[in-house]
């Protein structure tokens, strides 16, 4: 099977790596934004105010139910039409992925907080801790520990879903691969397979450690 030369020709690998960097950059920035926002959303969703909970729940379901691609289109094209904003594809992607991540994490945080047994609050209360102290020293650390595995999982799903960003013009890993394949169509007609193989390996190398970490943490905190 020929065509493997395409990988060693000129700048193929370095271009793919720069595509991978775009993929990682979008994911990392989105994760960095979603985590604090998600924690705040999760805490707000545990609020006693029915209205706050209902509104957040509605937004969250909307973001989760919408296909990410639709969200990308809405933010990318909608921002230009509705607000006259000229968002770059990457900026629009970060907005969508941050929204998505914050919604998913918000629900995870809410679930983790709800899973803390009431006796933990009671014990903290009789020890004289204030509500804030109880939250900071007792409840949040336990909730965060439970959140580690699903968060890893979310990050890994996010990395994979960034491939959709090419549809709004972001030149991420898969788009770079397509460009290389198109450019070399005549010189290496069978090169496509090899380029996708390289892309496969790159995704794998990013997501595999996340999945291992997630499983490790799950086992650690199972007790």
């Amino acid at each position, binding site marked *: 099977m020929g065509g493997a030369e395409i990988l060693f020709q000129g700048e193929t690998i370095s271009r793919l790596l720069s595509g991978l960097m775009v993929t990682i950059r979008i994911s990392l920035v989105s994760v960095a934004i979603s985590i604090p926002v998600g924690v705040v959303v999760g805490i707000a969703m545990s609020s006693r105010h029915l209205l706050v909970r209902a509104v957040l729940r509605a937004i969250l379901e909307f973001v989760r139910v919408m296909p990410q691609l639709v969200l990308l289109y809405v933010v990318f094209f909608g921002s230009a039409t509705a607000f006259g904003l000229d968002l770059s594809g990457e900026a629009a992607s970060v907005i969508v992925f941050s929204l998505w991540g914050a919604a998913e994490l918000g629900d995870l945080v809410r679930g983790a907080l709800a899973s803390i047994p009431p*006796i*933990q609050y*009671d*014990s*903290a*209360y*009789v*020890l*004289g*801790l*204030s509500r804030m*102290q109880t939250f900071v*020293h*007792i409840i949040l*650390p*336990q909730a965060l*520990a439970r959140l580690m595995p699903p968060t890893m999982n979310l990050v890994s799903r996010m990395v994979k879903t960034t491939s959709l960003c090419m549809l709004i013009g972001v030149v991420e890993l898969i788009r770079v691969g397509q460009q290389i394949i198109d450019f070399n169509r005549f010189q290496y007609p069978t090169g496509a397979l090899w380029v996708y193989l390289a892309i496969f390996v790159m995704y794998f190398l990013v997501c595999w450690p996340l999945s291992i970490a997630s499983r490790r943490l799950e086992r650690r905190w199972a*007790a």
Partner: protein
Amino acid sequence: MSGATPMLELRGLRKSFGDEVVLDGIDLSVASGEVLVVLGPSGCGKSTLLRCAVGLEPLDSGEVLVDGNLISATARDASLRQRVGMVFQSYDLFPNRTVLGNVTLSPMVVQHRSRSDAEEQAHSLLDRVGLWDKRDSYPSTLSGGQRQRVAICRALAMRPEVLLLDEVTAALDPEMVREVLDVVIDLADGGLTMMIVTHEMRFAEAVADRVVMLDQGHIAETSDDPPAFFRDPATPRARAFLSTFDYRRRSGRASGSLTKE
């Protein structure tokens, strides 16, 4: 005891859950250094009584006084809350903190004591219950008996004036009950004021200065002479309750008709 201010006083405590009246006007006081044991059938409101006393449940009406200070029924400020400690039946240690971390948390966070001060105190408390060696272990690695001993140390670290114990051995295997109850008897000998709910009748008899039996929202019987109470309770209600802990000796071997076939 007469004339002195009780360490803990409950006046006219009323508490209902929905239509169910659980506490129907309870008056009870515990003198300084006294050990009061509260008995009664399951569901009679013993836990509710302790939870009301410590402020975990809002009262429908009534008052709680600690050393003569009125504690409001709803919001309760931390300084007064700290004066009454409580240990629960189920394992309530903080799983995200080590044994030492559990014992030193509230002295440091609530009382703003220095780490070295808190650890020094934790050292002497944990030594007393034989668990200083376990200071760096996490609760999930301890036995039930060890956890409850740590929970007692954690409550004592706040230097409470009264300690409430709600069936602290009810979730334990029989062989671990003793190690925990020995600690409680030791505390009683040390003069700690306590209100104890327990189903361990031998222990109750051994540790109590006074026994109270709760039934249908009221105090059915009070006794300042625990051995006499357990030997010969005054009220039929208490007699019926205590008899539930006795088993009738079988008269002979059964024919075994149920086990055959």
